[in-house]
């Protein structure tokens, strides 16, 4: 595999390598990168896109949401609903333009990380999406953060950075979506930080809907304090190669996380989900339920690790990964892991992979429903458990519509 540093040096002209990326070590040998083949990515030279805000309303734009639109990493004021007051900060901000002390403090946070792609994100991200709610602030309208990549002659890379900070007792619904107008190659390397303080509540939906030739590498770090709650759905469909790493720290007693995932792959696509949920204190609860629909020659890998610290008694943790394999050539690599150091816990894990049940198809056909419709009905039913958990109707309906527009090879 060509190395990260070589790749960076190819992408950036001599002397222009941002930050201290030149010193970054390849750090992909561990278990968590085992199933992601970065060589195709490293073969491509990406440039940073110039400003190109000429975009009409994006496809997934809902007027009754609060919308934050980022085009090629740059915040579009005109398409967005910025809110800045003493209690609420919602918008796209950058150090140069925005003097609000809160912004400065967020942007000054430099994560110490040994993840090269996070370093890359830190080095080149432009405008940062920020949702920051003071104590007891409740935002009723869903907030939709959109990252759109437009058409370029050359492959481009963008590094979205998102900060969701909920002070005690606050709550909101956030949809973070990635899509591309470009059908060509592009890389999105995103980093999301979610801080949910005592008794705060977030519904967080992350939608990967990028072009067939795109690459997506994303990290989502969640920190849940006492009584905090995370309801979340991760939906992925599109990219040639995508990897999402989700790290959840159950850092306060009686915090709860419910995380659903649905991935659908076709052609030669590869999708990777790496999830770590750390139960660090007593009385926390996590539900992690992923599902995959795989077609053609596509690949998926799921690695979910539930860690329960020695002090984290009365932990409840459930995880499962279920896969519908619609082609002989599709493959899934699934690895649910439990690492438990406490002795009074309830933890469950499971994984399945299989074709659509023949007896279910026969049952539907015996009612006059043709095989194609029967197959679609069962795939939709499989996906519904995940999609039905999404709260904004408009998003749920949209996901159903794109799911059902799929080709679905007959079994």
């Amino acid at each position, binding site marked *: 595999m060509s190395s990260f540093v070589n790749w960076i040096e190819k992408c950036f002209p001599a002397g222009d390598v941002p930050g201290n990326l030149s010193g970054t070590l390849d750090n992909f040998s561990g278990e968590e990168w085992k199933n992601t083949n970065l060589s195709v990515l490293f073969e491509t030279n990406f440039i940073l896109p110039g400003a190109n805000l000429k975009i009409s309303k994006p496809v997934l734009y809902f007027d009754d949401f609060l919308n934050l639109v980022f085009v090629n990493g740059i915040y579009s004021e005109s398409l967005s609903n910025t809110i800045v007051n003493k209690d609420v900060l919602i918008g796209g901000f950058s150090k140069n333009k925005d003097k609000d002390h809160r912004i400065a403090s967020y942007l000054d946070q430099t994560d110490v990380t040994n993840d090269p792609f996070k370093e890359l994100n830190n080095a080149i991200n432009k405008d940062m999406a920020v949702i920051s709610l003071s104590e007891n602030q409740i935002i009723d309208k869903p907030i939709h953060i959109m990252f759109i990549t437009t058409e370029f002659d050359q492959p481009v890379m963008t590094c979205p950075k998102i900060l969701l900070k909920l002070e005690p007792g606050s709550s909101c619904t956030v949809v973070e979506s990635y899509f591309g107008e470009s059908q060509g190659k592009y890389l999105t390397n995103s980093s999301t930080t979610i801080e949910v303080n005592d008794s705060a509540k977030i519904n967080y939906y992350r939608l990967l809907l990028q072009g067939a030739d795109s690459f997506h590498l994303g990290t989502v770090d969640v920190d849940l304090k006492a009584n905090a709650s995370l309801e979340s759905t991760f939906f992925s469909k599109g990219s040639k190669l995508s990897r999402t790493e989700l790290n959840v720290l159950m850092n306060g007693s009686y915090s709860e996380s419910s995380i659903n995932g649905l991935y659908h792959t076709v052609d030669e696509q590869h999708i990777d989900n790496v999830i770590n949920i750390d139960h660090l204190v007593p009385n926390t609860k996590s539900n992690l339920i992923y599902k995959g629909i795989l077609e053609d020659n596509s690949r998926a890998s799921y690695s979910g690790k539930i860690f329960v610290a020695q002090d984290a008694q009365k932990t409840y943790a459930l995880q499962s990964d279920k896969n519908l394999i619609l082609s002989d050539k599709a493959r899934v690599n699934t690895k649910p892991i439990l690492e438990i150091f406490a002795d009074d816990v309830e933890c469950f894990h499971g994984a399945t992979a299989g074709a659509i*049940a023949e007896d279910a198809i026969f049952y539907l056909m*015996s*009612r006059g*429903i043709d*095989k194609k419709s029967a197959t679609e*009905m069962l795939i939709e*039913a499989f996906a519904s*458990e995940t999609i039905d958990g999404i709260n904004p109707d408009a998003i749920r309906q949209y996901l159903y519509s794109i799911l059902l527009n799929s080709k679905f090879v007959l079994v």
Partner: protein
Amino acid sequence: MLEIKNLHAKVDGELVLKGVNLSVLAGEVHAIMGPNGSGKSTLSNVIAGKPEYEITDGEIVFDGKNINDLVPDERARMGIFLGFQYPVELPGVRFRQYLKTAIDSIRKYRNLSDMSPREFTDLYDKNLELLKMDKDLVKRSVNDGFSGGEKKRSEVLQMCMLQPKLAILDETDSGLDIDALHLVANAINSVSKSGTATVLVTHYKRILTYVKPQYVHILYNGQIVESGSEKLADDLEKKGYDAFVKKN
């Protein structure tokens, strides 16, 4: 309506039906009885077109057409309904959407337009009432988490909704308590009165006191070894299968 001639069928390489002959006319009720393993469920599944069952000889003629090579959904659209012995649970498949799709598929085959939502709701409510089933069923997934009795009633509800020309009910009476049996029998009678040909596959005479068959057949070792009137079921109850098998 249904004419089965010298039907031989294999499942998993084993010959299970070894020359079945059966003729059922519109509006008739036929009961097929037989010990475990005699081929009753195989016969039901072969008529419905279950893929792993292979017809090796003979033919099934439905509505004047040989259906040996037709796929299950085509047979269903022509008017064949199978009430499953073990109804399949379909989590996530909404009962209403499923029934509506099935009805409209069958209507399309008959060159009818989709049933209006209103007509559907009326028909659905009427049949739920007939079977004394919970209205909330419509919000649930097909058979998902249903009790054994609910599943069987759900099969009969589906039959009432789909209004088939031929209904094959594979041990629909098993697992029903006496009240449910009454309701199910009522529903079968009402469908039968409308002209549906009915084949009741059963182990027990009990249901035949509520649904009067014109013919009773004994299936044994893949063949119908005896056919007679309703009285045959009484004889069978008294004498057991051996009495009928030994004659052959």
